[in-house]
């Protein structure tokens, strides 16, 4: 069985060598997937390029074999017309061939480039790697959690290779393990301070949007052209509007000129909190921890809850009526 297969391949190799010199390897690779399955060839005659004995009489001893016509071969030896392709990957019949191939390739790369210098983990570019769920989704394979962990350890080790020396093969191999959306690339633009000393911060809350220009000053605040007392009737709203300055003891150091639109009074006041905090951070970035503790950094994502059918409002039940 093995000898017949070898015979076929050696025959083809003989042709190809004659046809295109040293490029047989590539051709063999092409035909690799077309290898005949052993069951088909079982019991058949060994194929060879030897000419028949009656033709051999008047010919010179060494002649080129005739060209192989596969169609003729198929007809003559009753070989199945459609040979079953054999997968390239040896792990094709495992449940996770894509992952396995990647894993093996990574292991090979890790072994190859184990001696390249690495940088400290803190200095490496931050990358969001695919989570197990993402990986399963993108490969379409039931990857095991333990395998994933092992694989990701290799990925992270390869990622630490010094970026100046990192081979392209490594970069390409790691590409499959990166998430499609890289959150770490989404760096906020630093807020500039313009030539008048103003920093513009934008804040949002509920349906309100506030833009606050913060300059160094003595504590004056104008909201939509009105003073704080004119614009916000409630003391609480006024306090929330300047909360960022109050919490950092900067209320007598800056002036604010703000434009607010949308929403109601509470939303506008709290949108102003965020806007002023962001603009203040442009002036003094070191205040960020203090502002975060004061709750002036994170946007409050809550919105109006939608109304549901069968309810009067989002959650309020209809009035109970007897019968």
């Amino acid at each position: 069985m093995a000898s017949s297969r070898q015979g076929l391949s050696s025959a083809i190799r003989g042709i190809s060598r004659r046809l295109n010199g040293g490029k047989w390897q590539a051709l063999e690779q092409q035909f690799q997937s077309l290898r005949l399955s052993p069951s088909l060839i079982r019991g058949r005659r060994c194929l060879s390029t030897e000419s028949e004995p009656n033709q051999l009489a008047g010919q010179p001893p060494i002649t080129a074999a005739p060209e192989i016509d596969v169609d003729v071969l198929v007809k003559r030896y009753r070989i199945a017309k459609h040979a079953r392709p054999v997968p390239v990957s040896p792990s094709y019949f495992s449940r996770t061939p894509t992952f396995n191939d990647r894993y093996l390739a990574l292991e090979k790369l890790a072994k190859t480039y184990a001696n390249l210098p690495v940088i400290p983990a803190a200095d490496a570019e931050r990358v969001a790697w695919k989570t197990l769920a993402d990986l399963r989704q993108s490969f379409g394979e039931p990857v095991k959690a333990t395998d994933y962990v092992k694989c990701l350890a290799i990925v992270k080790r390869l990622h630490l290779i010094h970026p100046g020396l990192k081979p392209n093969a490594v970069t390409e191999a790691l590409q499959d393990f990166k998430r499609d959306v890289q959150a770490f690339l989404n760096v906020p633009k630093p807020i500039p301070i313009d030539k008048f000393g103003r920093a513009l911060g934008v804040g949002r809350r509920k349906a309100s949007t506030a833009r606050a220009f913060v300059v160094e000053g003595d504590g004056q605040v104008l909201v939509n052209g009105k003073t704080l007392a004119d614009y916000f009737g409630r003391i609480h709203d006024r306090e929330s509007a300047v909360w960022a300055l109050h919490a950092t003891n900067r209320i007598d150091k800056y002036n604010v000129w703000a434009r607010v639109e949308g929403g109601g009074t509470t939303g506008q006041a709290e949108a102003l909190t965020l806007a002023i905090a962001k603009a203040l951070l442009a002036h003094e970035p070191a205040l960020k921890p203090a502002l975060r503790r004061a709750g002036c950094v994170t946007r409050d994502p809550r919105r109006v809850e939608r109304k549901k059918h069968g309810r009067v409002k989002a959650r309020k039940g209809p009035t109970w009526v007897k019968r």
Partner: protein
Amino acid sequence: MSAPNCLRGLVRPSATIPISAPRSAAPRAAPIGLARPAPFSTTALNARRQDPNQQGGGGKGHVRQGKKLKLGKFKKTAVESKGKPPLPGERRAYRKRITLSNDNAIPVPWLKDIGADGLANAQNIARVLALPEEVQDQLRASEAFKPTQCWGMFRKPSLLVRKESVDLMNRIQTSVDNKQTLRLVVTGDKVTGKSMMLLQAQAHAFLNNWIVIHVPEGQELTTACTEYAPIPNTDPVQYMQPVYILKLLQSIKRANEKILAKTYTMTGHPELPQNITPNTPLLALCNAAKEPDSAWPVFQALWNELTAHGTAANRPPILLSLDGLAHVMRVSDYRSPAFERIHSHDLALVRLFTDTLGGAVQFPAGGAVLAATSRNNAPRSPSMELSLAQREAEQAKREEVPQKDPFFRGYDDRVEAVLRSVQVIRLGGVSKLEARALMEYWAASGMLRATVDEKAVTEKWTLAGSGVLGEMERAALLTMRI
């Protein structure tokens, strides 16, 4: 059997009967009700709950537990009487009462009384000064205090001397020195201290022995809440408001008692119910008005006497003031016999004021006519707003003076004529220095429990919209935060 037990035998058997106590514990001659010692309880409610006499009996009988079938669907439960309802006017009196001192507040040791020129002295800017007792009474008589102001929080009524108040007092003082009449309108945003400015001017006048005539609310004159009657022999017809004028006369009398007693009439007034001869004290003239009917002639006589020019007349300077100018700068709610609305300036008292504000009357010894606008419940008066804006622009020598809207017809010529040449003071927030002085006074009185430093002052100053005084009070004094 002893007497109490015998008596008990006559009572119907029920749960209300207390169990007879052992003879040794109960006093022999104790009446039936006192046989059991009173249960210990702190409140009336608990006492009732503990009292076994109330539980079982009491005529109501047994009360079923659980759900009951209600047959009458809309049967109303009897409303329990909640005590005596307040008498007519009692609620209003409570609402309008003015408390000028708080015994629980800490007295401020460094607080000084205002002197005669205390409010005109620039050195007193950003200082808090107290009103002397006598002036307090006079201001109370002229109704200069308002119930919305925070007088009741402090030991003594005190004033913050602002830059604007010194400016105003100096203007008044200058005009008095030159025997001229200052005509001025105080305007500004909500709770910036406009009424307080009038109060300071009155305090200054009382301290300098001037005569003060103060109309505390312009709206009382024009919202048709007081009686009115046409004045005979006037063309066009003018209307007097006898009840209000009687009240005003009495407040003038009480506020200016001393100075009126020292000022004498120049001419006789035989038309009045009491015959007033020359050289009668003006106080007697004021006293001549006992009834609303005679109020207007008496007031007119008093006004003529006060404004009489002549060398023989030794008249004191006069301060005439009115709060809530917008109400007297519109068509009033009163109706003429033809059921047309009467213009406010056809009401005699309002006309007297507007004529003086317009410059038709000059006080013999000088003085001032002050008016303050109000931002509470004030009607729109486009002419007044425009005129004040124009005067302000003219005084600031701005290039752009606001002009009339040619497509608007709500303007009032009579109002514009009155306000054609008045001076205007616009009040805004106080400076940080003044705010600090005020907050130190609050802290010293124990009303503001915080360290008064730069940060605290700026915080309240900012929250109050750049130092609007009323808002500072709201932010610092009237919140429940401690």
